[in-house]
């Protein structure tokens, strides 16, 4: 008897499966409202986007907005792309994924969006240069930026009367001074490989051309040449950190810095919430990492942390632009940068977090350069290579490997770039 039951169960399973298939096909739009769906990749900003969603829906009758802020959004986006189930808009950072998405023609050209006029030209240029090969049109509306430099313990600096360094020599002198007082100058959390990129990026903007990666792709230079000074200087920072920096992760480093175990922590502004969660009373400020001895070369390491793209599949671009208008309203941007300690990509008068005081003049002057790592393919694991380099401290071997690996991991991109250049020379 039981056997029959199983047979029926099997039959029932088949029926249900069929039912799902049929149901899947017959999905009809029965709502008059235009639906706009955004998937954005910063789960830490979920609360802000929930608020935006509610306020937008309360004030707009024709459009219904849905914003999701999932963790691991990149996996979700990729899965949805492969099923050809595109959200109307995506919120992503200006890194190599954006470059790939432009190249894959997943994104729509938004150059006719009027709001672009209000965006800081510096960030539009950064977006432009992220395209693998120059592509007609604009594909992202930069929303917020982050900045990486050195976070420092303001109370500690005031107490000892330390001055903010402006050149590499001053930086090293400061470290010596701090060390002489028996305080650890830097904390590092190199166990989490990605943190190895923070000082690297911050110094790279002053020591290497911002388009190093592109130059290498077009075959005019190599990393051994462009990154040597940077690599050597990076090694010089190590003695000012903890004895075994590879034992500590990002979280350990944040906790240690929050507990006053070091005077400075070379990391981006994004780390402040984690630090403050351990020590809410701490006064943190930041300065631009000086890597060059020439004050003229000073520039802030800043890139697009969040930008909004409309997908090519979006049925209703007008509605998407209306959502963008709402997102870009001054009061909303102010709320966002308050919550995230971010730098707005829109021009205008905004009140920035006090942690960015030391970087303010650079931001105001528009003196910003994008992160080098936004051009690195993630599978090349430059962060892990940097960690290896910092452990082995062999500049030549590191640079050599960097160059050979670059050629290997970027083969398809390099071919694309060189084909493009050939074609355009002929024209």
């Amino acid at each position, binding site marked *: 008897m*039981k056997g029959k039951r199983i047979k029926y169960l099997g039959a029932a399973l088949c029926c249900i499966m069929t039912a*799902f298939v049929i149901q899947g096909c017959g999905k009809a739009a029965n709502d008059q409202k235009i639906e706009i769906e955004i998937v954005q990749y910063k789960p830490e900003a979920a609360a802000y986007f929930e608020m935006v969603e509610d306020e937008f829906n309360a004030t707009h009758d024709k459009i219904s907005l849905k914003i999701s802020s999932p*963790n691991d959004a990149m996996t979700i986006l990729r*899965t949805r792309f492969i099923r050809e*189930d595109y959200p109307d808009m995506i919120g992503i950072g200006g890194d190599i994924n954006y470059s790939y998405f432009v190249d894959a023609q997943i994104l729509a050209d938004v150059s006719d969006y009027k709001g672009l006029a209000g965006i800081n030209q510096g960030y539009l240029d950064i977006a432009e240069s992220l395209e693998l090969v120059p592509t007609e049109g604009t594909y992202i509306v930069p929303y917020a930026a982050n900045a990486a430099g050195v976070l420092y313990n303001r109370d500690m600096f005031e107490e000892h009367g330390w001055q903010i360094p402006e050149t590499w020599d001053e930086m090293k002198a400061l470290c010596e001074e701090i060390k002489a007082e028996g305080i650890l100058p830097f904390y590092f959390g190199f166990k989490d490989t990605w943190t190895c990129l923070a000082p690297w990026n911050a110094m790279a903007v002053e020591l290497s051309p911002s388009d190093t990666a592109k130059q290498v792709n077009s075959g005019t230079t190599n990393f051994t040449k462009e990154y040597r000074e940077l690599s050597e200087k990076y090694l010089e920072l190590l003695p000012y950190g903890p004895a075994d920096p590879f034992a500590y992760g990002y979280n350990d480093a944040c906790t240690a810095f929050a507990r006053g175990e070091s005077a400075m922590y070379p990391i981006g502004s994004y*780390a402040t919430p984690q630090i403050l969660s351990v020590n809410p009373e701490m006064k943190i400020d930041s300065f631009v990492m000086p890597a060059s001895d020439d004050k003229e070369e000073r520039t802030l390491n800043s890139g697009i942390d969040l930008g909004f793209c409309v997908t090519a599949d979006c049925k209703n671009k007008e509605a998407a632009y209306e959502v963008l208008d709402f997102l870009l309203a001054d009061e909303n941007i102010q709320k966002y940068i308050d919550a995230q300690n971010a730098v707005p990509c829109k021009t205008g008068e905004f009140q920035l977090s006090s942690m960015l005081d030391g970087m303010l003049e650079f931001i105001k002057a528009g003196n910003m350069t994008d992160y080098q790592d936004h051009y690195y393919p993630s599978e090349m694991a430059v962060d892990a290579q940097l960690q290896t380099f910092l452990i082995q401290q062999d500049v030549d071997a590191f640079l050599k490997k960097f160059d050979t690996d670059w050629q290997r991991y970027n083969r398809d991109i390099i071919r694309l770039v060189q084909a493009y250049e050939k074609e355009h020379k002929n024209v």
Partner: protein
Amino acid sequence: MITKKTNHAAMILLILGLSTIVFPLYLTLVIAFKQPTEMTNSISGILSLPKVWSLDNFREAMRVTDFWNSLRNSLVITLAAVGLSIGIHSIMGYALGRNKADSKFYSFVYLFIVSGMFVPFAILMMPLAKQTAELGLANWFGVIILYVVFYMPMNILLYSGYLVNIPMALEEAAKVDGASTWTTYWKIIFPIMRPMHATVAVLTALAVWNDVMTPLVILAGSGQNTLPLAQLNFQTQFGTNYNLAFASYLLSLIPILIFYVICQKQILNGVVNGAVK
């Protein structure tokens, strides 16, 4: 029973080994009750008891994960996957286990399915995401079917391994009474395999309960969360609230622990002993 006395050597070994479990569990508990401001990198700091014992972390963790809804989804998926696995895998294990020795076909099917265990999930992920969407299975039902397929190799390996110790004589006796193979299986073999059902239930439930990737990929963006998916909310690259996360993990540990304790009894009440005699 050979020995009626307590096995002292075993007791000592077990108690010593217990320290490797009590210590991490203690840390988990203490951290789950602390506030982020109590986190330090010093050993005495991490081992110390929380300043205040309050259930706030647990309350907050339940709010963040939408606990009751996520729990319900997780329970439905896990129980359905376990139920179907026991039914489908045991009979398949029986069919393959009894025939693989003298049939090339069954031996091939057995190896074919068992080798499915070694397919790296990463290679299946994208094709499955596409396929489930094409079949209209990008929902919890699809997730359950996938689990039944994913754990089929392991469970068939377990069931057919267990069958080796179940004598054919039992079936032959039933056959003499004129029962069909189908009836014999459900009346005699299925109940005998109870300890293995319990083992399979525990292993499958555990794997399903903790799995993140399948629901993440299949339910992507549908808003239907399972507990592990909801728990992803605690960690981002730039900040992890370990206190809330630990509280939440402790909460989600309870149902599966209860399930294990229930199944454990079944594993022990093996009926093979009695049946063989």
